[in-house]
Each structure stands twice: as structure tokens, then as C-alpha cells.
């Protein structure tokens, strides 16, 4: 071991922080080098001087009390914050749950409610059409007369089918107003029963499955097909009305 190496390691030796093998090397060096031996002796006496100098300064008595009361204040300050947080949770959690349930109901019921409202309008339009002089604007059993009649009256051209061979007589067509927009109404007759077929471009693209409803004693069937929405309403029994729907959908 060289003296320069010894210079720092002697402190580790003095502090008892060296491995055994290192310590033995240091001891050997101290034994053989008078200069380093003296350095070591000086360090030992320095340490003794420090140890005997009462240099550790303990906390003043008042500080303990001061810190304790500061801690109590802090502890009290912390507690209400936590309670407040939880308090808010207790207050808002049920309200939040109720809100979520209401929102879910609203979202789930929304199309139904809209359908319900539309169905009511459809039935009202049907009832109105049954009043004298309101049934048709164009009286014709010919699809090639009825269909062109809508030109210039609507921004779409409704499909018109002649279903006389299947027992549904086309009486004609008229303009009506359902669901906040002008719609095409085609009127068919089955025996003594009148059928209104309302046609309007669908707000939603694609197809929507059939929905059957009844309102005020009338049967309704609605569906969407090829971007057009259809509503059929009549006092005809449901199975025959379904038959009509099948024919229209073909």
C-alpha cells in the first residue's frame, strides 16, 4: 500500500468501515511507515478532542412543545379535509347514481318515446283523413297517376304500388304533415277498412325492423327500408295489416 492510498483509507479504518482484508493492510502500513503512523495518531487525537468537546447540541426544551402543537394543528387540519372529501362523496355518490340511472332510462326510452309520439301523430293524421273530404287529394286507383301527382309537392318521390290483385284497393293519395314534415299518404281499402300508408325519407340511413303498435283502437306498423320510413295505420286487424305490409315491402 502506498502512502497516497493510505491517505483516504485511513479514515475508513478510523471509522471501522473497512473490510477485514483492507484493515489488515492498513495496520501493516501503519506498522511500517512512521509518517502515516503519525497521521493516524493525529486523527485519533482529533477525534478524541471532538468527542470530548460536548459539541452535540440538543434541541431546546421549548422546541419539543412547539413542534408538538404544530403537529396537532396540522393533524386537525388534515382530518377535516379528509372528512370533507368523503362528505362530498357521500353527498354526491347517490345523486350521481340516480343521475346515471335517469340518464340510462332517458337514453333507452328516447327512441320509444319518439316512436310513441310519432305513432300518435300517425293515428291523428289517419283519423283526420277519415273526416269527410279529407281522405285523398288525388283520387285514382292507378299507381301511374298517383305517383306523378306528388311531383313538385314533395322533395322525394314515394313508391306507389297497385295491390288490387291482392285485395288492397288503391284509392288515391294526399299530402299530409306528420313528424314535423310533409309526407306522402297513400290510401288503400280492404273491404270496408281504410288503410293509410305514410311515406317519408328516413332521418336514419339503412333499415329498421318493423314495429307494431296500437293506439286508440288502431293498429300501426312502422319500418324503415331503403332510406324511407313507412307507417301503416288502419282499423284493419293486425294479421291482415301485416299481410299488407309484406306486399308493400316486396
Amino acid at each position: 500500500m502506498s502512502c497516497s492510498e493510505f491517505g483516504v483509507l485511513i479514515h475508513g479504518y478510523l471509522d471501522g468501515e473497512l473490510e477485514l482484508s483492507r484493515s489488515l493492510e492498513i495496520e501493516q502500513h501503519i506498522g511500517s511507515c512512521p509518517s502515516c503512523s503519525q497521521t493516524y495518531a493525529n486523527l485519533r487525537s482529533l477525534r478524541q478532542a471532538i468527542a470530548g468537546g460536548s459539541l452535540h447540541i440538543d434541541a431546546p426544551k421549548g422546541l419539543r412543545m412547539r413542534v408538538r402543537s404544530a403537529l396537532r394543528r396540522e393533524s386537525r387540519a388534515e382530518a377535516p379535509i379528509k372528512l370533507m372529501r368523503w362528505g362530498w362523496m357521500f353527498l354526491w355518490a347517490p345523486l350521481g347514481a340516480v343521475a346515471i340511472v335517469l340518464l340510462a332510462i332517458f337514453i333507452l326510452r328516447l327512441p320509444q318515446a319518439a316512436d310513441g309520439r310519432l305513432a300518435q301523430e300517425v293515428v291523428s293524421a289517419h283519423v283526420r283523413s277519415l273526416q269527410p273530404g279529407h281522405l285523398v287529394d288525388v283520387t285514382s286507383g292507378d299507381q301511374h297517376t298517383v305517383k306523378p301527382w306528388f311531383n313538385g309537392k314533395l322533395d322525394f318521390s314515394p313508391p306507389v304500388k297497385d295491390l288490387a290483385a291482392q285485395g288492397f284497393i288503391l284509392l288515391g293519395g294526399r299530402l299530409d304533415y306528420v313528424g314535423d314534415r310533409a309526407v306522402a299518404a297513400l290510401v288503400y281499402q280492404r273491404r270496408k277498412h281504410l288503410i293509410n300508408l305514410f311515406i317519408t325519407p328516413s332521418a336514419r340511413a339503412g333499415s329498421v325492423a318493423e314495429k307494431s303498435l296500437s293506439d286508440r283502437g288502431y293498429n300501426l306498423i312502422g319500418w324503415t327500408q331503403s332510406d324511407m320510413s313507412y307507417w301503416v295505420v288502419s282499423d284493419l286487424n293486425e294479421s291482415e295489416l301485416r299481410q299488407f305490409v309484406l306486399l308493400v315491402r316486396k
Partner: protein
Amino acid sequence: MIAEDKLERFEKSILPQMDAAYNLARWLTRSDVDAQDVVQEAYLRAFKFFAGFRGGDSRSWLLRIVRNTCYTWIGKNRRGEVKMTTEEEALDLTSDAATPDEVLLQKADSKSLHQAIEELPLEFRETLVMRELEGMSYKEIADVADLPLGTVMSRLARARRLLRQRLLNQPGGKG
């Protein structure tokens, strides 16, 4: 209830370390009033972070916070003191005069020792205080001051050498 329990546990494990906390703060700030302020602030910080204390060496855990609080305080109030000496690595200890000075050091009274330690640069002072006054191991000092073990040893070497030089040069020290 939880808060009460926390305070109780804190007072039981951390409060007994106040002498060590004050001693370090006192030597780093070199002022009783400032050391008391620092200790109080450090204790409040420690209380806040108490959840992070996983048991074990409560003194090192607290002293780490005390030291950080001291450095923040020094940075605010004694700008310029926190400048690390760069010659640490280029430590030349062979120039230590290997002459007997046991007599001299035995004469060094508490007051001159106190003054000589206070005059040490911050990083050497804190290492020496933790080692000689708190009796902490290199490992504990390394944890508190965020240093490698080797640096703890070299800082101690430097601190002792500077201390010795100061004691030798103190007026009246030689007499």
C-alpha cells in the same frame, strides 16, 4: 380516528429523534432560531410524508428531510453557501504534516472546536457532524445525503484535514 392514530404513531417513532434533527439543523444553519424554524418545518413535512415511512431507521428518515429543509432554507437565506467544492476528487492528503500535534489538539477547547467546525464548507461540515456528533455509519450518511459510500469517506477525510488546519491556525490555538 385515523388522523389521531397517525399522530400517535408519528409522535412515538419520529419525535424522539428531535435532538438529532436539531443538532444537524443547528450545525447547518449555524443559528439557534433558524434551526428551530427548520426543525419545525421539517417535522411538518415529515408528518405529511409519514405514510411513506416503512419503519426501520427513523433517524435517517427524518434527517434526510431535515437536511433537505436546511438546504432549501440556506438556498433562500444564504445564497452562495451551497456551492460544492470540486477539488474533492483531487484530494491531496500526502501533504498532511505528519508532525505530532496531540498536545495542540488536546488544548483545543470546545469553543475553538465549535468555531472551526462551523467554518467548514457546508458539505464537509454536514458529513463530519453526522459521523462524529451523531455517530452515524457511512451507509446512514450516504442515505441521508444521497452520496456514494466512497464520497462519504473522501468528504470525511477532507473535513478532518480542513478542521485540523483551522485548529492549527486559530489564534491562541498554538499557545
